[in-house]
């Protein structure tokens, strides 16, 4: 019974790795014999713990190799998996889109018509200051330090919002819906207010670069949350938990993709959107981003014809 070394994980030399599987099978055989013929409980416990730990090593998730190596192998799969998963959940995405953009336009128009409306959503001094800074334009750009500060803030704040927006979908989708509506309303009202104060051109120039990534990712994460909630509300022919688990695996891909989009958005928003470049350039690049993302989500991964389970 000196097989205790079977458990000490990884970093084994090849010879030991080779011996691991046969040893494990032997231990299993011993265990079943011990259980069947009621050997002493201590022996059974020992064998059990031994086989449990060996089982943990042998049946690990596939190939815990070097991360870089795996990343390269999976890069294409992930590249294709994200848009496919998004398309598979297109209904939730459409609902999320509406849940975000209807309040968005409501807020925008509301604040445009009556600027004080925006004060109900965000504090007045903050809005005034915001307008001031947009009115000045970006001719000078920001200094590099401030760029990094803002990028860090966007990562912390926006990715956090998106992930929360997804996670709260587990409450029957309600959490995601509330988050979408609230964020849509707030964003719309702030934009509307700034526009009503005559800085509309500038704010458009500012947001056009990153908004595709940022708002797109929030809608996608929210849509994923709605799917999560819906899978529990209407599980079909499996139990609610099983339905949740099955859908959740799909959604992890979507949420990771959305988080990545937001990281990009933070970089753009931090270093590009506030730079002193001409507004024409910013707008055309922003438009190009929009078309690219839309095309990516709509088209990539179709050609393989592997649109399995297109519901």
């Amino acid at each position: 019974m000196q097989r205790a070394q079977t458990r000490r994980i990884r970093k084994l030399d090849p010879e030991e790795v080779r011996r691991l599987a046969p040893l494990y099978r032997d231990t299993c055989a011993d265990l079943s014999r011990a259980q069947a013929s009621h050997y002493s409980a201590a022996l059974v416990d020992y064998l059990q713990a031994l086989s449990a730990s060996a089982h943990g090593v042998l049946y690990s998730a596939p190939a815990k190799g070097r991360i870089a190596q795996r990343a390269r192998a999976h890069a294409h799969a992930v590249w294709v998996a994200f848009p496919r998963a998004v398309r598979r959940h297109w209904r939730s995405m459409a609902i999320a889109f509406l849940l975000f953009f209807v309040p968005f336009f409501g807020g925008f128009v509301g604040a445009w018509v009556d600027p004080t409306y925006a004060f109900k959503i965000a504090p007045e001094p903050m809005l005034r200051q915001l307008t001031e800074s947009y009115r000045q334009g970006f001719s000078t750009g920001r200094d590099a330090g401030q760029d990094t500060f803002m990028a860090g803030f966007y990562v912390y704040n926006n990715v956090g919002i998106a992930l929360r927006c997804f996670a709260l979908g587990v409450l029957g989708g309600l959490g995601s819906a509330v988050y979408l509506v609230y964020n849509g309303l707030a964003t719309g009202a702030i934009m509307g207010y700034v526009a009503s104060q005559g800085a509309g051109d500038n704010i458009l120039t500012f947001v056009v670069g990153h908004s595709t990534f940022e708002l797109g990712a929030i809608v996608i994460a929210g849509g994923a949350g709605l799917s999560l909630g819906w899978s529990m509300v209407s599980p079909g022919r499996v139990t609610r938990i099983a339905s949740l688990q099955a859908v959740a695996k799909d959604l992890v891909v979507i949420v990771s993709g959305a988080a990545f989009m937001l990281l990009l958005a933070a970089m753009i928003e931090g270093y590009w959107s506030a730079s002193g470049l001409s507004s024409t350039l910013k707008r055309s690049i922003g438009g190009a981003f929009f078309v690219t993302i839309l095309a990516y989500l709509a088209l990539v991964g179709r050609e393989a014809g592997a649109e399995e389970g297109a519901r």
Partner: protein
Amino acid sequence: MAEPLDTVVVIETPEHIVFRHRVAGPARRAVAYGIDLIVCYGSLIGIALVLSIVVIGGAFGGQEALANVGIGLFLLLLFCAQWVYFVAFETFTGRTPGKKLMGLRVVTTEGRPIGFTHAALRNLLRVADFLPTAYLLGGSFLFLSKRFQRVGDLVGGTLVVVPEKPTVATANVLWPPPHPAELAAIPQNIVLDADERAAIELFVRRRGALGPAREHELAVMIAPGLAARHGLPLTIDPSRFLAILHDRATHAGRKEAVVRDSLPPPSSREAA
């Protein structure tokens, strides 16, 4: 057989071996989580201190930009502490430092080590578990679910278990060696069925760890019944009677059952 009342989960492997894992209870998990929070935010505070010292030094040199870079980095780290720390540790090692310290491990409901998908789901849904505050939702799910799973565990299909360390049991030695008079009272071949043997063995092994009163109390429960069934007089201490009975039954009259004088006393009996 009725399902045991213990908090164990039964896992069957492809080899048709069934083994059990002990599921970790809320208390242990809370402590592990507390340790993780301390690790996360403790290091964050440490970094903040270093950054601010650097920045104050820089500010005297008139570099406000440096301060902003510092805050930006800090926010990035805060994000990592909130969202990346748990996922990364559980993906690559199956346990966060706090869980490691408390001897916990996250496995799938099939008893396998978890991967990125599981780790991401159970930790993303942490925010749902946290609701409305202080993990009330997650806590109530923990108590309602059979296997101490919070919402994140249910959706991710994971469990938190306490892996048992394989420990080699020492041989069960009858000590002090049986007196000839004691042996004379019990016939050479006693037949006990498997359950009886297992029960008595567990009792005999734990004898040293029990107080004398408790030992007596437990032994009195079954010793008279067994004695009556085998037609034996129960003249000696019931606990001692069980030990000899077990020794007889497991060694089934073989010689080495009696010759024990050369062996040293096991430490457990010394303590008793």
